[in-house]
């Protein structure tokens, strides 16, 4: 059994919470006591049916406002796969949450209301998912029951969305007509839509092929921690602990340590008390080298003929996540892989209008929930790859040095 992480997005009324409730319920991930609580609340509120959205509205402030205010993580499993859902609110002021949820997702699920068709928000969600390099996109056209399961309505929305995403980097798009409330095409194929010959949403989630998405060519091993036991039994042991960002490492491989540029060979790879034959993403292992080099946290192990970029100049798409805008000459802390440094903003080259994809070059700032192309200069060299090629070595966060708060997320060009 493997793991699929997906992010969901939709407007407040698209029925996203209902759909998630439905997936959890129909995959038997909802327990009786949880369901009873929701049924009781629905009755108290005088609803005609059990409001499955109540299953996922976590915090009291959300229940009071009737909206979802933050990223919530949900879990369910079928005999085929375990799923982690990053459930993000769809309304405009919370772009940062959607970026957060999409950052770890293999697949993005966008919901639209069949009666409304595509909205500015559905387009925005597709743009964010593609910017965050979510390879697989599913558009669920919801509330098909309210348009009499009409094929033409579905196809119009499908074609319009396909035309829009053709301008984005979306390698795999699937469009499914559903009714989250009634369960049509959620777990099983719907009899109400015989004209639809694709798979149900759950069937698609269970079978979508994500293995090929892992980057296995470029060896990138950011050193996280040096293991030195200082015990009699392991007196000379010195191992470099970390999580494989990409590529496959094997004992005997010739490797280079950056930024020093010194080379050695892999003497062994340890996973707890076992020596293993190869390490690949996202394994957390300890690598031992044949030579006694000076290697520390923040260094990166790669292959001599396949190295990441080394530079103090960073050119990236940045999503800004705080009220006080990002401005030229602003100083920030930056965390990239296991390396922390300081950065100064050189300029904002343009702001991306995520509704129209228009690049606004007249602006020199990024406000809350805005995304733009930014150039930074860092105090230390960063060891990077383009985000498009490598999500681990291509991403960074920006931290306000005074408050300690994460204020920006960057994807390197």
């Amino acid at each position, binding site marked *: 059994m*493997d*793991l699929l992480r997906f992010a969901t997005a939709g407007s407040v009324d698209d029925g996203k919470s209902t759909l998630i409730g439905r997936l959890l319920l129909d995959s038997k991930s909802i*327990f*009786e*006591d949880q369901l009873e*609580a929701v049924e009781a609340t629905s009755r108290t509120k005088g609803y005609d049916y059990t409001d499955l959205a109540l299953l*996922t509205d*976590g*915090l*009291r*402030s959300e229940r009071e406002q009737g909206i979802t205010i*933050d*990223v*919530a*993580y*949900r*879990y369910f*499993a079928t005999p085929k*796969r*375990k799923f*982690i859902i990053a459930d993000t609110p769809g309304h405009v002021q919370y772009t*940062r949450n959607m*970026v*957060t949820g999409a950052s*770890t997702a293999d697949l993005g699920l966008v919901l639209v209301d069949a009666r409304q068709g595509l909205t500015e928000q559905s387009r925005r969600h597709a743009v964010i998912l593609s910017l965050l390099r979510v390879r697989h996109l599913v558009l669920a056209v919801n509330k098909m029951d309210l348009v009499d399961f009409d094929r033409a309505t579905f196809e119009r929305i499908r074609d319009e969305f396909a035309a829009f995403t053709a301008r984005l980097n979306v390698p795999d798009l699937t469009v499914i007509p559903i009714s989250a409330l009634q369960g049509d095409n959620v777990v099983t194929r719907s009899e109400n839509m015989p004209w639809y010959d694709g798979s149900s949403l759950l069937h698609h989630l269970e079978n979508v092929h994500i*293995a090929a998405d*892992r980057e*296995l060519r470029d060896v990138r091993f950011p050193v*996280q*921690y040096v*293991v*030195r*036991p*200082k*015990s009699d039994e*392991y007196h000379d*042991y010195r191992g470099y*602990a*970390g*999580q494989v960002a990409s590529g496959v490492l094997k004992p005997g491989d010739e490797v280079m340590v950056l930024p020093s540029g010194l080379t050695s060979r892999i003497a062994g790879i340890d996973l*707890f*008390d076992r020596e293993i034959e*190869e390490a*690949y993403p*996202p*394994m*957390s292992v*300890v690598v031992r080298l044949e030579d006694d080099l000076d290697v520390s946290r923040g260094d990166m192990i790669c292959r001599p003929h396949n190295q990441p970029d080394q530079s103090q100049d960073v050119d990236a798409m940045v999503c800004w996540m705080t009220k006080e805008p990002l401005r030229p000459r602003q100083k920030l*802390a930056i*965390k*990239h892989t*296991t390396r922390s440094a300081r950065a100064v903003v050189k300029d904002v080259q343009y702001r991306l209008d995520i509704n129209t994809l228009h690049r606004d070059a007249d602006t020199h700032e990024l406000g809350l929930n805005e995304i733009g192309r930014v150039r930074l200069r860092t105090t230390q060299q960063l060891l990077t790859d383009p985000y498009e090629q490598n999500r*681990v070595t291509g*991403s960074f*966060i920006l*931290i306000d040095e005074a408050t*300690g*708060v*994460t204020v920006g*997320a960057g994807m390197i060009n």
Partner: protein
Amino acid sequence: MTTQPTYRLSQLDELEAESIHIFREVVAELERPVLMFSGGKDSIVMLRLAEKAFHPARIPFPVLQVDTGYDFPEVLACRDSWVDRLGVRLLVASVEEAIADGVVVDDGRTSRNRLQIGTLLHAIEENAFTAAFGGGRRDEEKARAKERVYSHRDEFGQWDPKNQRPELWSLYNGRLHEGEHMRVFPLSNWTELDIWDYITRERIEIPSIYFSHRRRVFERDGMLLSESEFNPLREGETVQERTVRFRTVGDLTLTGCVESEAATLEEIVEEVGASRITERGATRGDDRFSEAAMEDRKKEGYF
């Protein structure tokens, strides 16, 4: 015919790799971590993952247990066995001592579970810990579902759910001001079933009360509680011997057991997989008082 390697990890291996990454990240970046140990299965799985993260070195931080005075003896025995084997330093913060020292106030109505909050925060402050690993899982409860892996606490130990730091990729932000600390949840993405599958796969030693056994119990508020000197019977309550096991481990005055014949790990996995009631809903009096019980306790600084 040779098959191409798929280079895909199983869900347990992927979760393990993620948790180990979190342990190492905290130790590399935050000066004084501690692991909050309840003796329950989740905190034992945490210890196992910490053992793996730093092997062959010892776990480079101590283990802190908040002793309510109402702990199951079987749980304490298991704790000691783990601590001895790993050679890790154990700190015990006692709720009774905290009451005696006036750190927390026992008004006779507040449960020991709630008094743990003050005791824990005091221990964190006294020892100047900057990070405390907790065994919380996001599948446990709705408020937890929104908590970050690195959960920032202000100088009062409080959690502000509306003002959490965004957490992207696996880039954790461990920045702190004086007096603040970080709660870190390496098991955030594990479910109850993952925990049991992992315990089974790794043959991890857990307290015997998780397995089916005969026990003298009585019914209160729809829960089966253990007969004990700490649990005086109320009017109309009668003790019976039943075949039970515990699904969670906590203060024995509040933690109920369920009737079960599951005596091996495999049988427990089967039972958990088929169970239709959450582990907290079934057996934890502390979470049942209000729909927002956990949210409120977390804001104050609960585990």
